[in-house]
């Protein structure tokens, strides 16, 4: 087969070098991917009736989604964070969630009484410290889960695309339509991140503080702690 001359080879080698990712590149994607796996792909997976949802069954679908959706894909994601030591974050908003070990998922109803997220401009005082725990939600919420997940996933997609204002609008809609959502903590974590992305730091801090106080075992704690709201 015809070969290339040394200069052509050198040019190709330089091109390969130029397109080799740095540690910073990987760290950025690590964090984006961690956040997306917790908030994004999992929600769409559940909403579409994916394998993981089928495995746990309809009755357990809410629980599956509510525990930050980290068991999707079986062992694939388990231990992601635990064995993933990334360099300090680059200055991007995206943050990775912590991963809870599969044997110790955050139980439904425990530490999830986070209040609904705010409307843009709404005072955090509107948040209810004593929101009903998830365990009290019953079957009515189960029927709305695919819809809830779709809306949350849309909001997450907007946030990922850099349109945090649109994400906040969708999150607000989510709060209005599903005030007693099983996914309130996921919604609140995303609200904190979106508020940070729109420089609404004071509101982000208030919501983050509430979230961190109540969602003790949420796998999204790290995301919130590392956001502008947690600092």
């Amino acid at each position: 087969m015809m070969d290339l001359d040394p200069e052509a080879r050198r040019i190709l080698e330089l091109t390969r070098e130029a397109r080799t990712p740095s540690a910073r590149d990987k760290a950025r994607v690590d964090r984006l991917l961690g956040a997306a796996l917790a908030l994004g792909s999992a929600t769409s997976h559940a909403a579409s009736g994916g394998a993981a949802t089928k495995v746990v069954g309809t009755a357990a679908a809410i629980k599956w989604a509510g525990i930050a959706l980290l068991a999707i894909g079986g062992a694939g994601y388990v231990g992601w964070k635990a064995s993933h030591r990334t360099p300090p974050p680059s200055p991007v908003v995206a943050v990775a969630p912590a991963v809870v070990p599969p044997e110790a998922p955050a139980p439904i109803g425990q530490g999830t009484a986070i209040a609904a997220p705010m409307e843009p401009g709404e005072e955090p005082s509107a948040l209810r410290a004593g929101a009903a725990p998830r365990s009290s939600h019953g079957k009515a919420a189960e029927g709305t889960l695919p819809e809830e997940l779709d809306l949350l996933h849309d909001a997450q997609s907007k946030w990922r695309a850099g349109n945090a204002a649109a994400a906040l609008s969708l999150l607000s809609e989510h709060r209005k339509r599903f005030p007693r959502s099983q996914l309130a903590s996921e919604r609140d974590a995303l609200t904190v991140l979106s508020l940070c992305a729109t420089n609404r730091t004071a509101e982000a801090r208030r919501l983050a503080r509430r979230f961190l106080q109540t969602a003790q075992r949420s796998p999204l704690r790290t995301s919130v702690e590392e956001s502008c709201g947690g600092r």
Partner: protein
Amino acid sequence: MTTEHGSTFSNPEIPEMRADAEAVHLDFRPVYDTYFPFVWRAVANRGVPDAAMDDVVQEVFLVVHRKLGEFQGRSTLRTWLSGVVRRVVADHVRKRGNQATGQEALEDHPLESLEDPGAEVERRAAVQLVSVLLEKMSEAHREVFVLYELEQLTTREIAELTRTNENTVQTRLKAARRTFQRGLERHRASNARRET
């Protein structure tokens, strides 16, 4: 990396793996860590601009995360991953419009911030020149050339990925190399004329 049934990857950079179809169980995280550079380069080689790299690479791995359980070892993992990259990038281009040239983002990183500006200038010039030379090729030739010369797949892997036979791949690669080499010679001649 060790599979459930003991198959191992000996080369962590670009492993050659061909496992028995019934004997594949791969965990996502080690696959992600091992193949991140490969996937990143594959995405970049398809002209995705720097500004979109993080999102597209992330999307590739989200698909990998979702589909890894379906991988049966009938091809190498690199071939399988290349197929995912192909589809995700095509989807990205379709959604965003074909603005991807790989050129525009070169200005995003000021040379002053780089440790070795001279080397970086050389790399950027090489990337630009390769992009220009690739434009002279037909799509089929360009794909084979990029897969072989930049992503360093084997002709067999390329044949699997592009659903052609190995002879066709070799024929296309030969023609693509000829186009690349001639383009480079014209570029040299043009530079020489400018200097005189």
